[in-house]
Each structure stands twice: as structure tokens, then as C-alpha cells.
């Protein structure tokens, strides 16, 4: 699949924003969120900026962005519509939570209740994003049980790493949050490696035989219907060289997981000044790392329509 930057940025940025909101809600629910206005302004501000930036970015790939509001109408059948509604609905409990925290300087009681609703809405939104991809049968690498948990894990991971850095920078380090970040990064790394392992071993459900109805024997594409690339080849026929994929997987692991893991562990073990720098390094490494991971998510996904053009057969040889 063609890796469109506006969608990659949307899923990565909004994922981190919703992850951050979810973690804030959980902390409020267990009474571990300090009712500090500066902390509230910084953490909610970053989360909402990431979400708003992501949502705006997601409209850039539309052919008719001015009609984007219509996407809220088909919640009964479409995961994209459900995602849109959930993403907008999340602003309601988040707004109440922000009023409680920033205006009344409280994160407990009814404000914590709003926080729980905010967490639930954020998780539902990210799960809906995952379902958009997981429900597409023509793309075997997405249509697996790995996709939805991956979106949830990566959202919580990036959100926790962000919050850890915000807490450290505001001199309110929280060992529990740092530990949670460490666990989330480890879980994310394991999940990504398991996903790649699974995807590399996928036996294609569809063959060119069943795609053309020609049973038995090898079916080989000998002539395309057109001499220039058409929409299908540009959108679905994107191919990435195996050696590049292997290198990018190493880079994704280095930046999204390995460096943040080391930095977060260092933050847990070192003096506050060093810990501050380490937690910021974790964020700065993970940002490009998660973008590479998401780029690969698209670039390595193969659509069944490429069978008709003999592209998968050529890639296997």
C-alpha cells in the first residue's frame, strides 16, 4: 500500500495524543494525578495539539475535504465513520476534565470520573482506527488479530513516554509512570516483532488462480492492460525492496523501542537532572521511530489487486 504521509502522521500523532489522554484519565482514577494547573496545561495541551494536528492532517488525503463532515453519518457499518464520531466525542469528557483540572484545580471526585470517560473514549477511538485496517480482507498483513492491539499498545506507549517527559521537565517525576513507560516500550517491541514474524509467514489466502478463476497450473501475467501506472498501481501497487524493508525494520526498532527503552531505564536509575534529559531523549527518539514503524505498516502491506498485475509472484521469485 502507498504510504501516504498525512495518514501516517495522523495515526502516529493522534495515537500518541489519545494515549496521553488515556494515561491521564487512569492516573486521575487511581488518585495519582497531581492537581497542578501547569502540569494540566502542558499535558492536556500537548495531547490536544497532537490530536487536532492529526485530525487536520487526516483530511489532507481526502479528494473533497470540505465534505469531511459527511463521514460522521455511517456509524452503523463503517469503522472510519465510528472512528470519526469517537474522535470528536472524546472532546466532551476531555473538555470537562480540562475544566475541572485547569479551572477548579482538581483531579479527583467528579473530575476523575470525567477522566475515566475520557480514557474510555480515547481507547475506543484508537481501537476504531485499528479496526479500519484490521477489517480489510484484501490486505492480509492488516487483516490479523495483531492490528487492533498494536494500535492500542503503540498509543499507550507513546502517550506514557510523553507524559513521563512532561512530568520530569516540570520536576514532578513519577516512578510509577516511568516504570509504566518502560513496560509499555517492552510490550510494544515484543508486539511489533511478533507481528512481523506472523506477517512474514502469511500464506496468501488468494492466488492468481482464484483471482482469475483459472484452476490448476500456474497463471502468469504476460501483459498489463495499460502501459503507464494507473490509480491501482500507484495506490495499491507500492513495493518496497526487501533490503530497504530490513534496514527500516532495524531503524524502527532502534528509534521506537531500543533507544527509548535505554533512555527510560536511565531516567529511572539516575539523578533528576540526567533523568530529565533521558526522558526527553526517549520522546525525541520515539517520534521518528514510530513514524518509520507506521510507514512500514503501509509499505509492507500487500493488496490482492496486485495479484492481477503479477506483482506478488514477481516479488516471491
Amino acid at each position, binding site marked *: *500500500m502507498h504510504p501516504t504521509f498525512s495518514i501516517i502522521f495522523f495515526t502516529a500523532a493522534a495515537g500518541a495524543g489519545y494515549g496521553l489522554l488515556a494515561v491521564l484519565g487512569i492516573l486521575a482514577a487511581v488518585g495519582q494525578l497531581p492537581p497542578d494547573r501547569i502540569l494540566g496545561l502542558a499535558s492536556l495541551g500537548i495531547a490536544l495539539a497532537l490530536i487536532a494536528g492529526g485530525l487536520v492532517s487526516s483530511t489532507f*488525503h*481526502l*479528494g*473533497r*475535504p470540505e*465534505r*469531511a463532515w*459527511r*463521514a*460522521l*453519518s*455511517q456509524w*452503523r*457499518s*463503517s*469503522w*472510519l*465513520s465510528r472512528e*470519526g464520531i469517537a474522535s470528536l466525542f472524546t472532546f466532551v469528557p476531555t473538555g470537562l476534565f480540562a475544566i475541572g483540572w485547569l479551572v477548579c484545580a482538581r483531579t479527583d471526585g467528579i473530575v476523575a470520573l470525567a477522566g475515566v470517560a475520557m480514557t474510555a473514549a480515547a481507547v475506543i477511538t484508537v481501537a476504531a482506527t485499528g479496526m*479500519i485496517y484490521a*477489517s*480489510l*480482507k*484484501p*490486505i492480509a498483513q492488516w487483516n490479523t488479530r495483531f492490528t487492533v492491539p498494536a494500535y492500542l499498545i503503540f498509543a499507550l506507549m507513546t502517550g506514557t513516554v510523553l507524559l513521563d517527559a512532561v512530568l520530569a521537565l516540570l520536576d514532578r517525576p513519577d516512578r510509577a509512570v516511568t516504570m509504566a513507560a518502560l513496560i509499555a516500550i517492552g510490550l510494544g517491541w515484543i508486539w511489533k516483532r511478533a507481528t512481523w514474524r506472523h506477517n512474514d509467514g502469511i500464506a496468501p*489466502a*488468494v492466488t*492468481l488462480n*482464484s*483471482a*482469475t*478463476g*483459472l*484452476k*490448476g*497450473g*500456474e*497463471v*502468469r*501475467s*504476460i*501483459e*498489463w*492492460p*495499460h502501459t*503507464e*501506472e*494507473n*490509480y*491501482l498501481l500507484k*495506490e*495499491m501497487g507500492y513495493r518496497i525492496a526487501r533490503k530497504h524493508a530490513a534496514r527500516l525494520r532495524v531503524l524502527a526498532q532502534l528509534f521506537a523501542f531500543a533507544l527509548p527503552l535505554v533512555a527510560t531505564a536511565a531516567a529511572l536509575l539516575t539523578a533528576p537532572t540526567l533523568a530529565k534529559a533521558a526522558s526527553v531523549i526517549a520522546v525525541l527518539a520515539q517520534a521518528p521511530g514510530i513514524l518509520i514503524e507506521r510507514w512500514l505498516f503501509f509499505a509492507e502491506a500487500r*493488496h*490482492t*489487486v496486485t495479484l*492481477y*498485475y503479477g506483482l506478488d509472484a514477481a516479488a516471491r521469485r
Partner: protein
Amino acid sequence: MTDLPAATDRKLGLVIDLDTCVGCQACVTSCKEWNSGGSMAPLTDLNPYGAQAHGVWFNRVHAYEHGCTDGGRTVHFPRSCLHCATPACVTVCPTGASYKRAADGIVLIDDDKCIGCQLCSWACPYGARELDPIEGVMKKCTLCVDRIYNDNLEPEDRVPACVAACPTGARHFGDLGDASSPVSRLVRERGGVDLMPELGYGPVNKYLPPRPRAAGTLQAPAQALAPADPAGGFLGWVDRLLSD
């Protein structure tokens, strides 16, 4: 709504005969010609006469080599929307622009509602939907709704443009929900198949596989040419002259 009708009164669709298709591309150009002025018009072309021409097409003809037990065979394969019984392109649509008609099962796009998010093109395993880069909306085969119900056309012309154009009669149009229709009979008699049945989209269009080759047609009677080795006479003299 993008919910699918529980059942459709009719299942209009195409039956495509891979045995008789010769890959002449007449259906492809005829489709483009009709639909450039039809209900999904325009089918935008970018840079049509220059390098890297790009355009929207509803129907494409691929060519494959099918290696089977009785020898290889070239198969021309027209690919277009199959008007599936459970089209995921419709249910994933967030705006309600995509819909399947309860009356005849035709899958259509309301281009006043489409936002061009392209999710339907991802959801279609057959590559039936394309983005019109100028209009910013998705385009697809309409089964020529503006021909098959068109009272201004002669009754014999009320078929999709691709069917009308086919010079070998490889394309058939009719109601595949009616077991007694000529197309349903054809599917029964020739063992018509669904494309990618394992994905469960329930395509309405059927493909008729090439007929098995008649016994004995594989022997090629022409012998290999014997090397010309003239020993004497005029040709022998020429051969000697040229060989030196």
C-alpha cells in the same frame, strides 16, 4: 445508508466467457467512451497524449498465460466491478455515498456525497474503484444504469456498453438471480465461477472458464524444417560459392 439490502429483487450482472474473449479491448474503449458522458462522467484523463498518461477506467483486460496439464494457453481476462452481494466497498464507506440498490443489486456511488477518502478502493479485492484526481471522488462501473433502463435507446441496445461492443459475444448481461434466465443457464452449463470466493464477497458477475481442449488438437503436424544441404546443381553451386 451503507447498510446492505437483505436481498435484492434482481441480481443484474455480467457473465464473461474467458474461452471466447480475444483481448481486442473493444469493451474497454467502448466503456470509456460511453461513461465519459454517462452518469459517472467525466472519466478524467490527465496528460492523455503525453508521457505518464493517467486516466479513470472501469474495465481493463489483462492477459495471462495459464500453464495446465494439456499445455499452455493464453487467457484474456476482462476485469471490472463484480457488483458483489456483500460488497465491503459499500459498508466501509463513511459518508453513505456508496450503496447497493435493493431493486437490481447494482453497486453505485453518489458523487455528491463522496469525500474521496479512498477506503472503498482498499476494501475492494478486485480493483474495481478508482479515484478521479480532478473531481476528488471515487468512480466505478455503473453496469451502465443509464443504458439498461434508457427508453430512448432501442430495446436491443439496452445492455451495458461493454456487452454491446464485444465482437465475439464473450460478454453476457442479465439477471443472475433468476435461475431460468439465459445468463444463469450459461453459468450452469459452462461451470461459471466466482473470483476470489475465499474472501466471501459473493460476486454477482461470473466467469466462464476456457473449454477443455478437444482431444488431438495438441499434435502439431508441421515437421521441423530439414537443413538445406544441396549437393549439386545450381543450388549446390550457389551454396559452395557462398560458403567460401
